[in-house]
C-alpha cells in the first residue's frame, strides 16, 4: 500500500493540474453559462462523498461483527472523509444553485438525503470524540443505521416533493462535457483513496499508541 502511495499521488496531482484546462476548454452550457463549470468538481466530490460513506458503512459492519481493528480504522477514516468532502459538496452546490435555480437551497430528495447523511456522519464523529470508552462500537451502529436510512430519506422526500413543482433542470451531458467530467471524477476518486489511506495510517498509529499506553500501565 505504501509503495502505491507516491505513484498514485503523482498521477492525482498531474490530473488536478491538468483539470482546470480541460474544464475551461469544455463547452459552455446553454442556460447556465460559466457557473455550470462548478459542476465538474461538485459532482465528482458528490461521488467521492458517497464512496466515503459506503466505506465507513462497510467498515462499521465489519467492525461490529468481527471486531477487527482494521475495520474500525476504515470506518473512522471513511466517516471523516464523508464529513469533509460533504462540506465541499454542500457549499459548492448552493453556489451553483444560486445561479442555476435562483435559490441557495431546495428541499428535493437528493439535497435532503445528502444533508441528512452528512449530519449522521458528523454525529458519528461527535460520538467518537465525546462518547468516552466503548464509543467505537456505538459509532459503528450509528454508521450502519445511517447507511440503512439514506434510501428511506430519499424515498420519503421524493414522495413529499412530487406534490410540488420541480425546479431543477439538469441537462444531459453534451459530448464536449463528458471528457472533463469523467476526468475530474477519476481525479477525485484517486484523491479520495489517497486521503483514505492517509487517514487510516493516522488511526493505525493512534491504536499503536493506545496499546503502548496500556502496556506501560501494565508494568
Amino acid at each position, binding site marked *: 500500500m505504501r509503495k502505491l502511495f507516491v505513484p498514485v499521488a503523482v498521477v492525482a496531482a498531474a490530473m488536478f493540474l491538468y483539470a482546470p484546462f480541460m474544464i475551461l476548454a469544455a463547452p459552455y452550457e446553454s442556460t447556465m453559462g460559466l457557473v455550470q463549470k462548478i459542476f465538474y468538481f461538485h459532482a465528482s466530490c458528490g461521488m467521492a462523498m458517497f464512496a466515503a460513506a459506503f466505506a465507513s458503512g462497510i467498515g462499521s459492519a465489519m467492525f*461490529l*461483527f468481527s471486531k477487527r481493528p482494521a475495520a474500525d480504522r476504515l470506518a473512522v477514516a471513511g466517516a471523516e472523509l464523508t464529513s469533509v468532502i460533504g462540506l465541499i459538496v454542500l457549499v459548492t452546490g448552493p453556489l451553483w444553485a444560486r445561479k442555476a435555480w435562483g435559490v441557495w437551497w431546495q428541499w428535493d430528495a437528493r439535497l435532503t438525503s445528502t444533508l*441528512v447523511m452528512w*449530519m*449522521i456522519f458528523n*454525529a458519528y464523529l*461527535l*460520538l467518537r470524540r*465525546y*462518547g*468516552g470508552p*466503548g*464509543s467505537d*462500537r*456505538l459509532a*459503528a*451502529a*450509528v454508521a*450502519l*443505521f*445511517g447507511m*440503512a*436510512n439514506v434510501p*428511506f*430519506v430519499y*424515498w*420519503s*422526500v421524493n*414522495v*413529499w416533493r412530487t406534490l410540488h413543482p420541480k425546479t431543477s433542470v439538469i441537462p444531459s451531458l453534451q459530448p464536449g462535457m463528458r471528457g472533463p467530467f469523467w476526468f475530474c471524477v477519476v481525479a477525485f476518486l484517486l484523491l479520495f483513496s489517497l486521503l483514505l489511506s492517509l487517514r487510516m495510517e493516522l488511526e493505525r498509529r493512534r491504536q499503536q499508541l493506545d496499546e503502548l499506553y496500556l502496556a506501560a500501565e501494565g508494568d
Partner: protein
Amino acid sequence: MNPALSKSGQVVEESAPPAIEQPAAARVTRVSPVTRFARSVFEITRKDLLVEARTREILYTTIFFAVSCVMVFAFGFVREGRPVQDAAAGILWIAIAFSGTLALGRAFERERHGETLRALLIAPIDRPALYLGKLLGILILLAAVEVLVVPLVALMFQAALFSHALLMIGLLAAGTLGFAAVGTLFAAMLVRARSRDVMLPVLLYPITVPVIIAGVRGTAALLAPEADLPMARAWLSMLVFFDVVFVTLALWTFEPVMTE
C-alpha cells in the same frame, strides 16, 4: 446443559412471582423457546411498568414537557387566532419526537442508576428479548403521553384529528414505533457512554428523519380540507416498512453493541 439453568425464566412457583434467576432446586417445566422468549419480553416490560407505576415520574414529566412544547409552538405558529396551515401536523410530531427523546433518556438513566441494565445483560435472557421488552415499555409510556397530547393539539390548533381516527391511530402507532425502535437501541447503547444526555438527540434526530417526514405528511394529508386518504395510506405503508427494517436492524445489532 443443566436444564434448571437454561430454563430458569420459566420456573413455575405458586407463591413467589417468577424471578429471572432461580436456584437449582426449583421445579422445572418444559416450555417452547417461543414461549420462553415471549415471557422474557413480558417480564421485562412488566418490571419497567411496575417501577414507573410506583412513582409515575417519567409519565408526568413527559406529559408536562409535551404540553409545554405544544404551547411554545403555538406562540410561533398561530397568527391572529388562526393557526398556520399544516402547523398542527408538524407540531404534533415534533412534540412526540422531543418528549420521546426525553422519556428514553430518563428511562435508561434509571437503569444506569440502579445498575439494573448490567444485571439484565448478565441474566440468561436472549438479548433480542431484552430489547423488545424495553421497546414495549417505552411504547406504552409514549402511547399514554399521546393519548393526552393528540386531543390537546386538536383543540389548540383546531385540527380535525379524529375525522379518520383509524388512519390517525395507525400513523401515530407506526411512527412512534419507528422512533422508539431506533431510540431504544441508541439509548441502551449510550447508557455507559459519556455525554449521553446530548448524544441521544444528536444521534436520534438525523436517523429518524424519514419517520418524522412520513408522520407529518401523513397527518397533514388527513387534516387537509378534503382529506387525502390514499396519500395518508401511502405514508402509513412507508412507516410500516421503515418499522420492519429498523426493528430488524436493531435486533440484529443489539447483541454486538451491548456486549463488552
